[in-house]
């Protein structure tokens, strides 16, 4: 699972702040908190993904499950296409056919859910961009569905609740997202790096326990407008030790531009749908890659 390998690279470099971690074309990718999958506590989908979670060392060793490593000595399927096609590949391909069928069956939205407020959606692979104009202010929200599914912790088991086989934890994508607000004819945008705090995501029924906002702002900075490189020399405000009144003003500022709790919830729905869609597409690409046509 190549995404897990990339997570390792990011985790190693994760000490760097957002502003210095930008290796992608979009500076907006906050790489400081990759959602590393802890295999033992990962959310388990019925099929393919559960296989990846069997291994405890997946994230750190780049392990590929033995189930799929072919004994190269086994005779290849004669196909004349010039590529290697082993018995393992054939089994893999058949397995993928079933997987794809099942994933499509459980796919919640065949079309992507809309985000209310007149946002336009642009997709570029794993990256999504929502744009909207609010009385002259251009607002762009960018997020990447890679590493956007946090592991679920075994809270329910500890509380002694028994889950039936059907009640598997729902996979929810909670990507970090970046909001850029650009005033008309301005050279700079006000950029907010936002995230979904972990404890809120798990929808813990906090009875007087620590509960967090649905989404939170982590960093704020002025950056050049458009997709240019992140300007390291721009001061970046970190909200960790920020005056809370100032924080509330920043949240109100975003809310006035359509980025509020409703938006955050809908973004989660959208991201989850996109992630599932891309996952199925990936399975299909895998299938095409290993099959011999």
């Amino acid at each position, binding site marked *: 699972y190549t995404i897990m390998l990339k997570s390792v690279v990011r985790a190693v470099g994760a000490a760097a702040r957002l502003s210095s971690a930008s290796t992608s074309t979009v500076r907006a990718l906050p790489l400081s908190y990759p959602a590393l999958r802890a295999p033992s506590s990962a959310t388990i989908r019925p099929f393919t993904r559960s296989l990846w979670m069997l291994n405890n060392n997946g994230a750190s060793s780049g392990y590929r499950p033995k189930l799929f490593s072919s004994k190269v000595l086994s005779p290849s399927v004669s196909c004349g296409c010039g590529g290697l096609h082993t018995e393992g590949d054939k089994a893999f391909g058949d397995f993928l056919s079933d997987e794809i069928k099942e994933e499509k069956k459980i796919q919640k939205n065949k079309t992507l859910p809309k985000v209310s407020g007149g946002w336009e959606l642009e997709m570029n692979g794993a990256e999504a961009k929502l744009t909207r104009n609010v009385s002259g202010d251009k607002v762009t929200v960018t997020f990447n569905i890679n590493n956007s599914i946090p592991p679920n912790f075994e809270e329910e088991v500890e509380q002694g609740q028994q889950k039936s086989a059907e009640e598997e934890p729902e996979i929810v994508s909670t990507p970090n997202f970046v909001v850029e607000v650009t005033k008309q004819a301005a050279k700079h945008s006000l950029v907010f790096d936002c995230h979904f705090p972990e404890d809120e995501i798990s929808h813990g029924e906090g009875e007087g326990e620590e509960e967090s*906002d*649905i989404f939170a702002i982590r960093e704020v900075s002025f950056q050049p407008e458009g997709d240019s490189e992140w300007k390291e020399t721009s001061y970046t405000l970190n909200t960790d030790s920020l005056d*809370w009144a100032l924080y*509330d*003003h920043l949240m*109100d500022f975003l809310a006035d531009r359509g980025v509020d*709790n409703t938006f955050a*919830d809908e973004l989660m729905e959208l991201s989850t749908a996109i992630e599932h869609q891309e996952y199925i597409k990936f399975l299909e690409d895998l299938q095409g890659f290993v099959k011999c046509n």
Partner: protein
Amino acid sequence: MGVVLRNLQKVVPLRRARLRRDVDTLRHILGIQKFDLGIICVDNRRMQQINHIYRKKNSPTDVLSFPFYEDLRPGKLPCPLHRDELNLGDIFLGVEFVMKQCQEESLDLHGALTVVTAHGICHLLGYRHETEEEWTEMQQRENYILSEYSRLTGQHLEPLMKRCSQDR
């Protein structure tokens, strides 16, 4: 520290900075600025859950207070020995519930939330209304807070006329 404000709901569009400012004014009136306070804004669904768990009442309400100090004499400020005890507790504001009341009575939402929060803070400070005497004492305190609030801000707020939520 100070006031920890959380907005867990999406039903009511809240002005966080306004709410914080109003709560800070109440804290100033009561002389409790050095104490931490949690204000958590929730919808009817969440409020009903909490009300059910803690008061066995399966319905939403406007405010529920969870005091840090459980046996305070009404109005007597705690004298904590340690800095981490400088905490009055948490107030859950049923903003959806209050919003509906405001719509029915044509009231300003944030004004109503201030009144409800004042009531909640009184509970954190040991005020109760189990008896008629306690009710009178609490009502007097609330009236004082709201008249001071009016003097400081120019905003006249009506106290909660109905019996307190923690009775419902």
